[in-house]
């Protein structure tokens, strides 16, 4: 019964609307996500350069100023559940545009800053929330639009992070020319570029797929109509299977609630489901009603109570499985990247060579992400198998890192680490989509990001504490290796969790039999 999730992928190719989604505007979405990655990650990484300027001119101790950076990067994760709610109410495109506007506004406001608390709010809070909006909207939209090639598109978008190394020298140049205030002004302008690119996040086509649903029940009708009805049947079936599955959880009110007003991918079948149940003979009326239901009609679904903050992911074991792995794989990713250069220095490697290591790591990771995404999309096996494999290999690599004491060995470690890291980071979003489907992606991703944010906040201080306690960077790598090995353990529980979920939904399966 697990396979209900999967047929959506091949069936998506048959549904006419999904085909339209995969071509054309899907590239716009991937491009926007790519841009978001470049700018958001670039801003977060170059905060260190602003740090120096702030310390000199605005005053305040290092701790106070590093709060700004922490607030900025942690709010990006912690703000995700809130953003998920906003996205569901307003839609991704308005949320993304609002996020871009907030980020640009925050940058501009920061130019007037005179004290650290001011900067904490203008730069930390505003930018953090803006980033969360942008990221969540872009990620979910990518998942919605690129059904068949999600892993590869996700990898392309994530490769934007690899380009962030260009932003650091650029920022330094700007600061030399214009001072930190001028630089923030220019950055505000650059962030405004995300507004037109957010406009590329068009909602999935509001046009009803050409189909007279009534035809499926009549022998008459042209052959073209028949073919349409067959494909529609499949579309309907897949979506109805999904809808029925969802009925058993509490998600249905929310999915109905949010899909219909936006006329997204599978809203109409939900309506048709109810209507087909009632009137099988008055097919013509059904057709026109269904058509009319596509026009944004908040009134029709006003009856369904939509919980403002959807807590259903917290009751789902799949969510805990995913979050467990998400948390640990983020820790396993961040800690070595923090301490790589420091470790190289303690081994006596010059800073020039250390920066080579960093560049090699960045480029290898980019390439490996693309490759991993492409391979995963071939669907030779479930995506989370790849994910778990990369995690295990990365864990082993990290555990072997203490043996790397010379430059060539450290370079080998860096290449291996980058390959496996790129591999598993590229698959995080596709794995989540596989596990929970696209409809609930907002709530699940929101909460998962929230928990990951807690890890992100605790990660750097924890790594620093490890170093202070053991006076060597070796422990950070061992810790990262352990995290990477712990992370895929939860996936072993995935099949049993799915069975448990289906058993819970067993009594409600009757409508399906009835429909058949």
């Amino acid at each position, binding site marked *: 019964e697990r396979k209900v999730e999967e047929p959506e992928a091949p069936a998506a190719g048959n549904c006419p609307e999904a085909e339209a989604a995969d071509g054309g505007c899907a590239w716009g979405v991937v491009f926007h996500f790519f841009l978001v990655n470049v700018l958001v990650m670039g801003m977060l990484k170059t905060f260190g350069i602003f740090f120096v300027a702030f310390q000199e001119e605005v005053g305040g101790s290092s701790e106070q100023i590093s709060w700004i950076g922490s607030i900025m990067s942690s709010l990006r994760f912690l703000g995700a559940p809130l953003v998920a709610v906003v996205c569901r109410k307003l839609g991704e495109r308005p949320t993304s545009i609002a996020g871009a506007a907030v980020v640009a506004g925050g940058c501009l406001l920061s130019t007037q800053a005179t004290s650290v608390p001011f900067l904490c709010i203008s730069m930390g809070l505003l930018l953090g929330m803006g980033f969360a909006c942008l990221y969540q909207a872009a990620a979910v939209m990518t998942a919605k639009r690129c059904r068949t090639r999600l892993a590869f598109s996700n990898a392309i978008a994530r490769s934007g992070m690899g380009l962030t190394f260009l932003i650091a020298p650029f920022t330094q140049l700007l600061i030399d020319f214009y001072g930190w205030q001028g630089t923030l002004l220019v950055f505000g*302008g650059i962030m405004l570029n995300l507004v*037109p690119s957010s406009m590329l996040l068009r909602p999935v086509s509001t*046009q009803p797929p050409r189909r007279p649903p009534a035809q499926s029940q009549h022998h008459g009708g042209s052959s073209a109509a028949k073919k349409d009805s067959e494909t529609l049947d499949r579309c309907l079936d897949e979506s109805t299977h999904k809808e029925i599955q969802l009925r058993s959880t509490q998600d249905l009110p929310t999915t109905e609630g949010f899909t219909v007003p936006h006329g997204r991918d599978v809203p109409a079948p939900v309506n048709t489901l109810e209507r087909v149940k009632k009137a099988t003979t008055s097919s013509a009326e059904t057709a026109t009603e269904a058509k009319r239901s596509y026009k944004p009609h908040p009134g029709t679904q006003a009856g369904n109570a939509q919980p403002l903050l959807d807590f259903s992911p917290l009751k789902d074991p799949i969510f805990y499985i995913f979050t467990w792995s998400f948390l640990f794989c983020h820790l396993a990713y961040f800690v070595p990247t923090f301490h790589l250069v420091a470790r190289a220095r303690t081994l006596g490697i010059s800073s020039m060579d250390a920066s080579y290591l960093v560049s090699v790591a960045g480029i290898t990771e980019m390439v490996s992400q693309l490759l991993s995404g492409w391979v995963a999309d071939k669907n030779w096996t479930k995506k989370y198998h790849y994910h778990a494999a990369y995690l295990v290999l990365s864990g082993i690599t990290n555990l072997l890192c203490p043996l790397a004491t010379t430059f060539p060995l450290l370079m080998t470690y860096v290449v291996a680490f980058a390959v496996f890291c790129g591999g598993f980071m590229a698959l995080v979003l596709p794995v989540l989509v596989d596990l929970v489907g696209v409809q609930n992606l907002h709530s699940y991703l929101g909460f998962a990001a929230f928990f990951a944010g807690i890890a992100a906040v605790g990660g750097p201080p924890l790594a620093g504490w490890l170093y202070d306690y053991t006076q060597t960077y070796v422990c950070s790598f061992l810790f990262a290796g352990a995290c990477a090995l712990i992370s895929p353990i939860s996936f072993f529980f995935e099949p049993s969790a799915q069975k448990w979920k289906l058993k819970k939904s067993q009594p409600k399966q009757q409508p399906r039999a009835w429909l058949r």
Partner: protein
Amino acid sequence: GASGTSVDTTISLDKAVEVELTCILDKEYSYLKSFQVTWKRGNETISHTNKTDSSWSIKVSVSDSSKLGSYSCTLKGEKQLSGIFHLQVPKIERKEKPTISYLRDTGVMSCECPGYTAISWTWYMTNGSKQIVINESLLADRYVISKKSASITQLKILKLSKEDGGEYWCEATFELGKSEGRLELKVLSFVVPLKPFIAIVVEVVVFIALIVCYEIYSTKVKRTETEKEFDQIEHLKSEDSGLESSEARQRRI
């Protein structure tokens, strides 16, 4: 201590102390037999205070600036070896890049001599070719000199104007002398970074306009298509109802 052919080292002193300078002969030169080691400062020879087979030391009591300078120990024999000690006041870190501030804003400049404590700091402003002391009483409303810590001093200039740009000097007074650092302040008008900003905003607006136009165009196209489809479906509907009635008639029969 120093050893080898000719070695240089710098020692920074901020207070009056007594230093012992030692020259140690490296093991690789232990084969040298007849030689003579002399300690000199300029032309003046200083007598050893301590002497062993391979090391020679002198003690210098640095009580004022006259005792600062270069002390050298020279080995004359088969080979000529020397080691030089430079005793001086701590140097202030120089800033290569100018500090950038904006008109009517506050300009902040700071000087630091890490690890040493200065007795007092003085700031100078360069007007033309003259150096003018920035006296607190002179321009108390616009200049604020503050001691951030034992080794850092900060000059804040409020309400900057174009004339405030230029060279500034910070001078640290130690027991044994003075040390200077040079800074540059650049005052920019707000318009300077505004130009690239406006250029970017214009580009953004152009993109937004393009996308909006494209969307309006494509929704128009889609609307005509859906109208055509509705017509098709209506047509099929009528066919259907025709079929239905014929079937119904057949059944009744």
